[in-house]
């Protein structure tokens, strides 16, 4: 049986792991390669590396990091942050990334999704959507949630699927960093309407939040950062609880 995935997200700046609280304040949480190896060993199902240092020089550091992770880690990983061209994706995949995640660049140029899918296949193209509820409408935001757009979450998600994306990574900016749980109602609607996997992100604070994301939110995977980085939740413990709740997991 296909299992629900637990995905720690490592925010990367200058080759180090950081985690933003509401994407603004940053704390240093360690060496990404070492952390990735530990997470893989302890039961994470996949990893996401989000590069938040998008200058040209720093991106070379990212490519080296991707190569180091690919050499050492025996589970799949996705790389995101500042990816805006077919060439960017080519370099990351050639260096061992399994999937890439695009966000702002897809909103600015939706054809990029089609181009990437045509060249690399749906299976490695994740579209990340950051959204925030404004007067009862889920609006897509850019630049880590700072810049609102005219795009509405559910119609954008539909377009993203039609253009061939393999997965959607949905972050609720209203929930991110709050540790009050995932945006389960929006998740449920996304997962019901769409026929590609939905990764839930933003709001994980305790183990029952993950249970809710899978049962109430019908998510296919759940992503979190600080609860893992600061060892508030261990993978084995979390998966044990999920299994007790009838959610299939890899244990």
């Amino acid at each position, binding site marked *: 049986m296909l299992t629900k995935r637990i995905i720690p997200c490592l925010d990367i700046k200058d080759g180090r792991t950081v985690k933003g609280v509401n994407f603004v304040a940053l704390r240093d949480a360690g060496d990404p390669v070492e952390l990735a190896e530990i997470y893989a060993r302890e039961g994470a199902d996949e990893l996401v590396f989000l590069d938040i240092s998008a200058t040209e020089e720093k991106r070379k550091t990212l490519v080296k990091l991707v190569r180091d992770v690919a050499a050492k880690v*025996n*589970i799949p990983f996705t790389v995101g942050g500042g990816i805006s061209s077919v060439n960017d994706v080519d370099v990351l995949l050639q260096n061992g990334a399994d999937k890439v995640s695009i966000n702002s660049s897809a909103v600015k140029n939706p054809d990029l999704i089609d181009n990437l899918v045509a060249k*690399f296949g749906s299976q490695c193209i994740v579209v990340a959507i950051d959204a925030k509820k404004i007067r009862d409408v889920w609006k897509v935001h850019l630049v880590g949630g700072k810049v609102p757009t005219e795009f509405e979450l559910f119609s954008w998600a539909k377009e993203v699927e039609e253009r061939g994306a393999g997965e959607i990574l949905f972050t609720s900016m209203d929930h991110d960093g709050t540790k009050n749980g995932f945006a389960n109602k929006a998740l449920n609607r996304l997962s019901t309407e769409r026929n590609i996997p939905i990764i839930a992100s933003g709001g994980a604070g305790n183990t029952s939040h993950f249970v809710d994301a899978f049962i109430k939110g019908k998510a296919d995977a759940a992503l979190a950062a600080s609860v893992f980085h600061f060892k508030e939740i261990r993978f084995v413990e979390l998966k044990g609880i999920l299994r007790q709740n009838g959610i299939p997991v890899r244990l």
Partner: protein
Amino acid sequence: MTTVIIDYGAGNIQSIKFAFERLGITPKLTKDWEEISSSDRVIFPGVGEASSAMRKLKASKLDTLVPTLKQPVLGICLGMQLMCNSSEEGSTKGLGIFDTEVVRFTNKVKVPQIGWNQITDLKSGLFHNINELDYIYLVHSYYAPISDYTIATSSYELPYSSALRKNNFFGVQFHPEKSSTTGEQILKNFIEMNPYDAYSN
């Protein structure tokens, strides 16, 4: 002992190379006919879209070589699918090693299937020291149905072939290079198998 990974330009093969290196094996990436023919083990990878991968294989003139190989050959993911008669994806004619047709999951389930699933009904030395219901990582929209060649089964919408085998030809739908210690054991089994055993079971 030499191992080659056929490098015909269809997707990310670094991960497979790295996975072997973690096992202390240094595979060579090549599309050279001689190097492939003379190697003890051959890995036939592939990710992406079937018809364009097949075009690349033909452009490298390897479509005629692969079916004639005598040493153990392991197709991975799309590599396995291309070893079948055909794929619905892009109406692709395959290499015809496994006499079976690759078809798409219906929209009753989310497509692609992405994540960790389980393998059962394990039937080959490829799965030495692997347990029934162990977890493997998959990303795919198309699958090979259960057939006489099936040596491992997974279920998604319906039971399907997670691995196929005919004589010295093996194919896995999952990614052993990304399937944690289970995948590493399967790659190790493939390297360590007695090539003559490949013709029995």
